């Protein structure tokens, strides 16, 4: 045994040395090998491929990217995006998992930029990761487009030059939620909230409560619940809410937790007592189907999915996506598509002749860009032209028994200026100071 052991030890040892060399040395070599003539544009695409956030955000995001890039390379995207790839040059994507500590994420970002020499990085679901990556992106002058993370802090902390976010930030979701709620339920006297106990949940609740404070100071807050992220068991929370008198429940839960909560509250008929307003509800309706309580107020983090304006472009996107993955695209897919389109546009605007534009040129072209995509028109109006704003929409959920599919009815659209802070004001203060200058 001992000999065998040490022999195998030796083998394993050499394996180790090998791997370390592999990890450190050959990967870039392979990257070089993989990277075809300068003709093609390399994109690093980062999203959750493992872990609890994979199925709600990471995977739809990646799928959105896959299908979109495929269409772009085939030149099949509707005009004005019908140029092949990015300005005629093929797009080549490298997909990376977002899972891991901030250190991992930052390291992997650096690897993409310096080792694999991608021309731009699109991705990131977690706001924490977006914040962690931003300074490095700036330092490396690496063109970066965040597609899903919601925190407004990125462009509020300081102006950025190489970091963009086409998708509107999370403030608008909750401001619009408040407006829609008050429009649909004038009789509401008190509301409660259940949000995950981490930045996303806390910010969502702060914005929503703040907006309510401004729009309807008389309406009171009853229960404020912050269960642990991915807690899975909400018995106590449901009971607490059952004993509450408020007519409305605000939640920014998503996928896993949202579904778990919905099942458990359904089993105890909470939705018969209060209306649920789910700011990210849309991402879950295709799995929840008839389990999502009828009459819930549903958001999609912008005009995405069923809340997207009915346009040629949108129908096209829904079709290619559903045909491939036989489930309709949810908002992360839309956000990814929009981010890609924005980048494509900027890239093509910046491209002169055959030469690849530098990231500075693309950034310059990207600034303040405005375009129409599957989720309607978006304008990089705030954050010094780096942060997109768009109209948003809320609607009321209903499961259509005949068609046996979810639908969202009496949709209300809120113009961008109505639910977003004007340029140069940070979201928190804007809400605190009574959402001045909101044009509705």
């Amino acid at each position, binding site marked *: 045994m001992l000999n065998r*052991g040490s022999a*195998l*030890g030796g*083998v*394993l*040892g050499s*394996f*180790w040395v090998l*791997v*370390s060399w*592999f*990890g*450190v040395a050959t*990967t*870039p070599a392979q*990257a070089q090998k993989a990277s075809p003539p300068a003709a093609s544009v390399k994109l690093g695409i980062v999203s959750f*491929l*493992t872990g609890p956030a994979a199925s709600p955000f990471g995977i739809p995001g990646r799928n959105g990217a896959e299908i979109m890039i495929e269409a772009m390379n085939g030149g099949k995207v509707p005009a004005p995006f019908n140029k092949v790839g990015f300005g005629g040059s093929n797009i080549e994507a490298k*997909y*990376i*998992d977002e899972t*891991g*500590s*901030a*250190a*991992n994420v*930052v*390291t*992997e970002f*650096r*690897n993409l*930029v*310096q*080792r*694999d020499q991608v021309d731009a990085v699109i991705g990131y679901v977690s*706001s*924490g990761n977006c*914040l*962690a990556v*931003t*300074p*490095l992106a700036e*330092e*490396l002058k690496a063109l970066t487009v965040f597609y899903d993370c919601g*925190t407004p*802090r990125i462009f509020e*902390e300081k102006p950025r030059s190489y970091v963009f976010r086409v998708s509107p930030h999370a403030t608008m979701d909750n401001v619009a939620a408040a407006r829609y709620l008050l429009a649909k339920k004038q009789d509401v006297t008190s509301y409660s909230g259940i949000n995950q*106990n*981490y*930045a*996303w949940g*806390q910010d969502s609740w*702060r914005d929503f409560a703040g907006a309510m404070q401004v729009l309807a100071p008389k309406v009171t807050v009853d229960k404020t619940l912050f269960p642990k*992220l991915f807690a899975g068991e909400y018995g106590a929370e449901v009971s607490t809410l059952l004993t509450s008198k408020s007519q409305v429940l605000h939640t920014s839960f998503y996928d896993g937790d949202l579904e778990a909560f919905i099942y458990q509250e359904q089993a105890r008929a909470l939705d018969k007592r209060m209306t649920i307003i789910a700011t990210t509800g849309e991402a879950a309706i295709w799995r929840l189907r008839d389990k999502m309580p009828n009459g819930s107020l549903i958001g999609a983090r912008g005009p995405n999915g069923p809340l997207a304006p009915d346009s040629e472009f949108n129908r096209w996107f829904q079709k290619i996506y559903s045909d491939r993955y036989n489930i309709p695209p949810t908002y992360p897919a839309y956000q990814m598509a929009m981010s890609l389109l924005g980048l494509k546009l900027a890239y093509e605007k910046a491209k002169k002749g055959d030469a690849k534009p530098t990231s500075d040129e693309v950034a310059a072209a990207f600034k303040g860009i405005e375009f129409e995509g599957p989720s309607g028109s978006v304008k990089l109006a705030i954050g010094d032209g780096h942060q997109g704003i768009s109209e948003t929409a809320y609607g009321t959920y209903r499961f259509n028994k005949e068609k046996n599919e979810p639908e969202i009815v009496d949709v209300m659209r809120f113009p961008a200026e109505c639910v977003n802070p004007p340029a140069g004001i940070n979201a928190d203060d804007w809400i605190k100071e009574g959402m001045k200058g909101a044009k509705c």
Partner: protein
Amino acid sequence: MAKQGRIAASSALLAAAAVAALVLPGWMISLATIAFANGLVVLGLIVLWRAGLVSFGQALYYCIGAYAVALVGRWTGMTDALVLALIGGGSAGLVAFGVGFLLARYREIFFAMLSLALSMILYGLLVKTESLGSTDGFSVIAPTFFGYAPHQQALLVALYWLVLAICAVAALLVGAYFRSVGGALAIPLRDNEIRVEFLGMSASRLIHTKLVISGLLGGMGGALAALAVGHVDPNMSYWTTSGEFVFITILAGAGSVVPAFVGSLAFESVRSFAFAMLPQLWQMLLGSVLLLTILFLPQGLGSLIMRPRWRRDAEAP
């Protein structure tokens, strides 16, 4: 003889590592920087492990060190990397000294569980403090070096060299500690505490010292990691972070100080390699590597680097 040999080898290794920075691409340097910073934490775990103690809560000190740096940088505008690192290590060391009065009474799995509980409580506290960005955390200032404020590649290299230097010093000091009474008594402690007590030495005091040392190293590692990453968040104190450190410790082996850093570097490389090659199955690769190492390299990577004297090192003070 063997000793001289090892010293020569180590210094050669160090020199090579230092020079490498001039030729390696940025991403490799930063990978190494983070790996070596974590190596300090692993070194701290080794100090404990030799006495038969394994902490599943080392992330506590890692996180405290990191947050100390981030906050001091934020509030006082202090940017000198070395000072910040020392502050990080110091604050973690203090905390270790405090909780030491408690932890030093525990052994085996109970020690592990209690340290885990402590680090998770810190996690909870940080998640609760929205003013510090809750789980999003916040960014760390770009460090300066004795007044020298480099950027881009230069910054990378400077920080890398600082980390190398600190690691070297730490390695020397810990090596010396292993040869001191307190350090050498690790194995006697693991073997037979009662005897140690009846020879007139307080076991819990010995362990307390080890806790403080490992806390210092953990904090220092966290501080440097924070500077290298440029961002801190509560996950640094989550139990999976501690798990990762124990993982590396097993890979490295408790033999002596150098493997801590080699092991950490190997781990980072493998992880990054796995991320690039199997974006969705990297955990499987990590798991298999860990398993194989435990099965066939029970003494860890260290046993490859320093085969000849390794067992004696592990056994003998």
